[in-house]
């Protein structure tokens, strides 16, 4: 056994601060944070990043990434990021938002930032529920899913259908890149990282708006074990929220 040759092949990225997170066991925010941190390191972005956090469990992202950050009001992160990017076009600006923040209260801000083609990147964590406030219905809650405000399950005729954000974003003119990944298995996590990297590259090249949705588990509010919650992504979420790249202007000849 020659431990002399041993190499550390997987460790905490430098941009992710060495501290315990406040997230529940099996929550996928930690995976999403780490992917972002790895890319900030690999793409040498840490010194030019200005992070905009949102409201929800992920508000504390600013405690976990070692970068400059501002806290946006609920749903307004794309507007705040627009202001930062317009004020400092040479910096790298991204938002990190949950489904309640982005797809409900922040719907106007995300749609218009995307449509203007703001040169920012958006990480959208979709776990079909308001996490921090205790598990209420989100715009992405699936039909039949019980939450604290849909105790009998979300009903199509009463609450409407879950919103597919990536498809909507992909339909907008200013968008350079829109993709949906999942954090439920190793293959999907690696693919999700490639999606985020692509979105970041579109900002760096000044091409346009980049959007990556990440299907994630919220075991606590789904009232499931981490393993059962993780399985739910494959069984229930992916059939409704299909994975893949929905827009990539580098394959279409670019936007004007």
């Amino acid at each position, binding site marked *: 056994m020659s431990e002399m040759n041993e190499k550390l092949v997987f460790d905490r990225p430098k941009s992710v601060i060495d501290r315990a997170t406040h997230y529940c066991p099996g929550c996928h925010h930690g995976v999403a944070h780490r992917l972002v941190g790895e890319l900030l390191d690999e793409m040498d972005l*840490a*010194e*030019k*990043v*200005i992070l*905009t956090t949102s409201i929800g469990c992920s*508000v504390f992202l*600013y405690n976990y990434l*070692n*970068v*400059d*950050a*501002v*806290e*946006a*009001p609920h749903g*307004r992160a794309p*507007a*705040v*990021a*627009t*202001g*930062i*990017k*317009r*004020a*400092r076009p040479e*910096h790298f600006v991204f938002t990190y938002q949950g489904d309640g923040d982005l797809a409900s209260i922040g719907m*106007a*801000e995300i*749609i*218009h930032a995307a449509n*203007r083609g703001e040169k920012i990147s958006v990480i959208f964590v979709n776990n079909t529920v308001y996490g921090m406030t205790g598990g209420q219905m989100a715009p992405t809650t699936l039909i039949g899913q019980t939450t604290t405000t849909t105790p009998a399950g979300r009903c199509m005729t009463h609450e409407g259908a879950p919103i597919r954000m990536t498809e909507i974003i992909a339909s907008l003119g200013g968008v350079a890149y829109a993709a949906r990944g999942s954090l439920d298995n190793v293959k999907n996590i690696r693919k999700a990282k490639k999606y985020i990297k692509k979105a970041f590259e579109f900002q760096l090249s000044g091409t346009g708006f980049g959007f990556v949705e990440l299907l994630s588990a919220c075991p606590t509010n789904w009232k499931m074990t981490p393993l059962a919650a993780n399985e739910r992504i494959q069984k229930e979420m992916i059939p409704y929220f299909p994975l893949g790249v929905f827009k990539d202007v580098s394959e279409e000849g670019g936007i004007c």
Partner: protein
Amino acid sequence: MTKQAERIFVKGNEAIARGALAAKCKCFFGYPITPQNDIPEFMSSAIIKAGGDFVQAESEIAAANMLLGAGAAGVRAMTSSSSPGVSLKQEAISYMAGSEIPAVVVNMNRGGPGLGDIGPAQGDYYQSTRGGGHGDYRHFTLGPATVQEAYDLTIRAFDIAFRHRTPVLILGDAILGQMKEPIVPWEPENIDDEPGRDWCLDGKTPDREKRLLKSLFLQEGELAGQNKHLQAKYDAWEELTECEQFETEDAELVICAYGSIARIAKSAVRKFRSQGKKVGLFRPITLYPFPSKELKALAEQGKRFLTIEQNLGQMLDDVRLAIRTVADSDFYAIYPGNLPTPDELEEPILNSLEGK
């Protein structure tokens, strides 16, 4: 300050836009609403020519949050609106106050409540001087009365915003915004328009800690500490009050009014003076912090007071708080939708003068 001799003839709205450019405002975030549309319209080309950027936002909410972002980045930025739109901006203004992010917000006050009308009004005085949004905070509020003063105070607003890390509100109204007057533009000297202050977000380099601008303070005692810090900041502003006193020295009756209404009252004062009647005008220029000390000093000389506002009596509270231990103030309300003439103010002034 170096004054340029050249005079220009502009609306109050344009004067504010020009003042902002003179103060090296780099970003403007607008949204249409009457009667302030000249500001975003002027800025849409002028600020780009000046090397800055303009965004017509999807809402007043978004515009104010863009302002929050630009301010967090340490860059001079502004938004403008009118009453219903300013209500929507209160969310971001509260966050900016809590996170101590500097920015300049303009409110060209129109009639309310609700959609009201598009004429001049002063119904937003409470909102403008009590914080306006949720939570326990104040922000600096300036009340120009002339087009020249609108230009001058806009330059001052940026200075205050960045010196004290606070949102600053410029409170005008439809008269000021739409009225044309000759002004002498000037360029302030020694503007610190280079970002790189020790609080703003410009990228974490290895030689410094990361910076975080936030208003969430969950740890025990943390929010109390932050709010005490804010309180100390607001208390210190009491040294920065500004007001205009016109013929107050020997006045028996002092009229308290701000903005456009103060200007009309000033004409009435002139008329009374020409008749030998001892009437004066006290006009707060800083609406928050309110010039209480200056007003109280007048009360201690035994003068009477009449507050005139284009609302149901809002600044009246501040007048009474200032003089409460020695005097009281009469009140005369001007209702929205009508622009009073100096003659219309004669009767209420005479009544107060004679103690009726």
